[in-house]
């Protein structure tokens, strides 16, 4: 078969924007009305600029602007006569595409029989005049929510079917605007038929659809000059620059959903009066209820779809009570839906950054401020480039001190190392090599001013030789490698550390950090299990330094002679019947994997869930830098992606046999 090239696309009838004087808006209005459309545009009413039906250009808010701030809206006179020199008011196209009350069904009930007749709307043809990029983004969101799935809201679909949009690119902004962060403005990119940018010169009008081209052709406007075009581009760009990037969207979903227990939810609820203003001015909020109005006999019923709000007390009510009885739960539901869970449901955030919820909140709660407080962007941890970062290279360190911890475990202090080692973080490890033996991943059990400390159990030939090193001996090191315990996440919170055996070694730097800055953390509890009393590591710290620093230390051993008066049994017995509250506690766990599984289960039973529990894993490693392939676990490399993971991150792979 011979392929023939497709015919060239027809050139647009009109290339580039046209210029209209401000008075040229009336002919446009006339054209839209002649097309049988109700024109919904901005007008001044009740002390605000609202959307309403417009028949004459005289109704437009010529020369009006506004002063907006959290909880504040005032009309102000502009010094010029711009038609679109205002920022968004309380009303949005939602009032026409998704009215606050529409009948959806007529029903009857008579002598035990019932009937339902869906009401099919006969909406007017509408043209929106003057709506902004963020509002078009909101319409796109409603399109997805209300008609993008398997079930369609027929009323919305009918109203939306023939809407024509004459949009305005923003050359003004309010302090409450944040479309730039949400990716919805201020530039007009899609979804409109005609785009207007208003400058001091007048109106630059550009068609984006055939319907728009027809209108533009009928307006017989001249082509805009390059200078006029440049001014329009500049004014919209200046708007973007003025707004800046007030909401850190990348990663916001994950950061927010990780904070269901943040104290700020309760704090904001102290101010929130759960009035639902935010949801009624929001252009994307779509939650509704069905209200029924009946005749006196109750036989003829009209079912109305009415706007509802997740802030209303009855919103989450069932026969047994409300699932979200507390204001903090309702605020969290609203904010996390807008900025996080909406994305899972519909592919984008449910917020377009119009700022209406900020302006129209009677107590001035600012969504941007709340999101930043509850889900702050943590400055990225400085990346410590490991030293000797190729499989064949090792930095040479010198053993400066040796301490025998137990019969088979030795602690080596290593100094004269590259400063990168000392800048490592608790939980990281080093690949350690002696020529003639395989390189081994060894936990760093302390960071010192000019080096680090390794605690090694002599379990095989290489580790036994390492344990036998003497002061002055040299050893090869690569590191510091891998992820760290998330100390920033637990700052200000309660921390539980559960370790077994040699597993205390990678947690000692965490305890060092607690001792160094005790005020940074809430309560800190260490539960440590060893094989026998003689196998307990770091006795000085366990018995002196840590308890004196206000760390609650509890020890247990698997077996003991009669000289041991402490607990004997598994480490979980130290806390499974304790009375502390785990609902806001974080846990760090290290030990043999089977012990960690039992611990994670016991912690979960105490209310410490997968997102607040971290473990460190051990796997065979030859390189420690993601090149040798040995330490794979599912989709993770333990060396690069770990060794510290949250249980939520590991999911089902944690504790599964043979992964």
């Amino acid at each position: 078969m011979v392929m023939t090239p497709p015919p060239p696309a027809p050139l647009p009838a009109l290339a580039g924007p046209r210029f209209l004087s401000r008075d040229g808006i009336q002919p446009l209005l006339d054209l839209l009305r002649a097309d049988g459309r109700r024109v919904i545009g901005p007008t001044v009413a009740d002390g605000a600029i609202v959307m309403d039906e417009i028949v004459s250009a005289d109704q437009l808010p010529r020369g009006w602007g506004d002063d907006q701030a959290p909880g504040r809206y005032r009309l102000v006179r502009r010094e010029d006569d711009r038609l679109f020199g205002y920022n968004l008011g309380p009303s949005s196209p939602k009032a026409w595409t998704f009215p606050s009350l529409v009948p959806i069904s007529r029903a009857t009930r008579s002598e035990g029989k019932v009937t339902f007749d869906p009401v099919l709307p006969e909406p007017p043809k509408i043209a929106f005049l003057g709506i902004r990029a963020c509002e078009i983004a909101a319409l796109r969101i409603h399109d997805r929510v209300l008609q993008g799935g398997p079930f369609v809201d027929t009323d919305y679909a009918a109203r939306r079917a023939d809407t024509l949009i004459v949009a305005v690119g923003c050359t003004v902004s309010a302090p409450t605007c944040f479309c730039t962060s949400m990716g919805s403005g201020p530039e007009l990119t899609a979804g409109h038929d005609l785009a207007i940018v208003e400058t001091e010169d007048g109106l630059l009008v550009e068609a984006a659809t055939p319907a728009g081209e027809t209108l533009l052709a009928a307006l017989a406007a001249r082509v805009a000059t390059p200078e006029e075009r440049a001014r329009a581009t500049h004014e919209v760009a200046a708007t973007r620059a003025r707004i800046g990037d007030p909401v850190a969207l990348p990663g916001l979903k994950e950061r927010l959903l990780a904070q269901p227990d943040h104290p700020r939810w309760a704090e904001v609820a102290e101010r929130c009066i759960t009035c639902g203003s935010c949801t009624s001015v929001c252009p994307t909020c779509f939650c509704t209820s069905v209200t029924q109005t009946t005749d006196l006999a109750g036989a003829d019923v009209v079912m109305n779809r009415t706007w509802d709000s997740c802030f209303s007390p009855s919103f989450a009510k069932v026969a047994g009570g409300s699932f979200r009885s507390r204001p903090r739960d309702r605020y969290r539901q609203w904010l996390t839906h807008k900025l996080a869970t909406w994305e899972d449901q519909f592919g984008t955030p449910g917020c377009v950054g119009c700022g209406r919820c900020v302006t129209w909140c009677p107590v001035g709660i600012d969504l941007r401020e709340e999101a930043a407080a509850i889900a702050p962007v943590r400055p990225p941890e400085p990346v410590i480039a490991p030293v000797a970062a190729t499989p064949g290279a090792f930095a040479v360190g010198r053993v400066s001190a040796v301490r025998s911890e137990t019969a088979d475990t030795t602690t080596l202090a290593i100094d004269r190392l590259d400063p990168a080692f000392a800048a490592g973080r608790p939980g990281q490890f080093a690949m350690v090599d002696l020529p003639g033996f395989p390189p081994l991943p060894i936990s760093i059990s302390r960071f010192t001013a000019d080096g680090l400390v390794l605690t090694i159990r002599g379990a095989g030939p290489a580790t036994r030789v390492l344990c036998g090193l003497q002061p002055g001996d040299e050893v090869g090191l690569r590191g510091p490698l891998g992820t760290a315990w998330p100390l920033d996440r637990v700052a200000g919170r309660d921390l539980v550390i559960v370790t077994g055996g040699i597993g205390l070694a990678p947690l000692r730097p965490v305890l060092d950090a607690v001792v160094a800055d005790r005020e940074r953390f809430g309560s800190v509890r260490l539960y440590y299990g060893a094989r026998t009393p003689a196998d307990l590591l770091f006795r000085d710290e366990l018995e002196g330094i840590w308890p004196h620093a206000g760390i609650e230390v509890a020890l247990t051993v698997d077996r003991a002679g009669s000289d041991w008066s402490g607990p004997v049994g598994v480490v979980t017995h130290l806390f499974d019947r304790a009375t502390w509250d785990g609902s806001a506690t974080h846990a760090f766990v290290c030990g043999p994997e089977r012990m960690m599984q039992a611990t994670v289960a016991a912690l979960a039973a105490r209310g410490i869930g997968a997102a607040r529990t971290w473990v460190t894993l051990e796997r065979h490693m030859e390189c420690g830098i993601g090149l040798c392939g040995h330490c794979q676990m599912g989709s993770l490399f333990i060396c690069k992606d770990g060794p510290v993971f949250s249980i939520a991150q590991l999911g089902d792979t944690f504790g599964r046999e043979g992964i």
Partner: protein
Amino acid sequence: MNDQATLVATLASTWFATGLAPAVSARLAALARPVSAPAGTVILREGEGTDLLGVVITGRVALRTLVPERGEATILTVEPGDIYGWSALVPPYRATSTAVAIEPLEAIVFPGTALRAALHEDPALAAALYPRVLLAVSRRLTATRLQLLDLYAAEQVRSW
């Protein structure tokens, strides 16, 4: 711990006996008496008859077993809130290990014979108490299995 009300309240403060129905709690307290013992007291001897089921209030009880040439090895300690002497409820009513108070002990004890008779004649008491004993014993059994794995041993130590 010298009156009935204190006894009931003390029992209710332990995880073993917390949340019992008032009638059950009263019945149990009627059988109970507080005991104290200095550190070093042998409470039960492995293989001998178990006369008392005890709930530790304060202190620590070591459960020990004699291993030839190793002496007495402690395999578990009973901490506050937990029970010792559960063999008082299970034939042949003989202790499975030696129990020694290794810290000064305050406990509430139930005479085995009287408790068994009460459990036999009072189904409500039996229905309330047996699951708690079973829970305490199963918690211990699960832990013992983990201990048996000897997880903290060096790699080359294999006992099978």
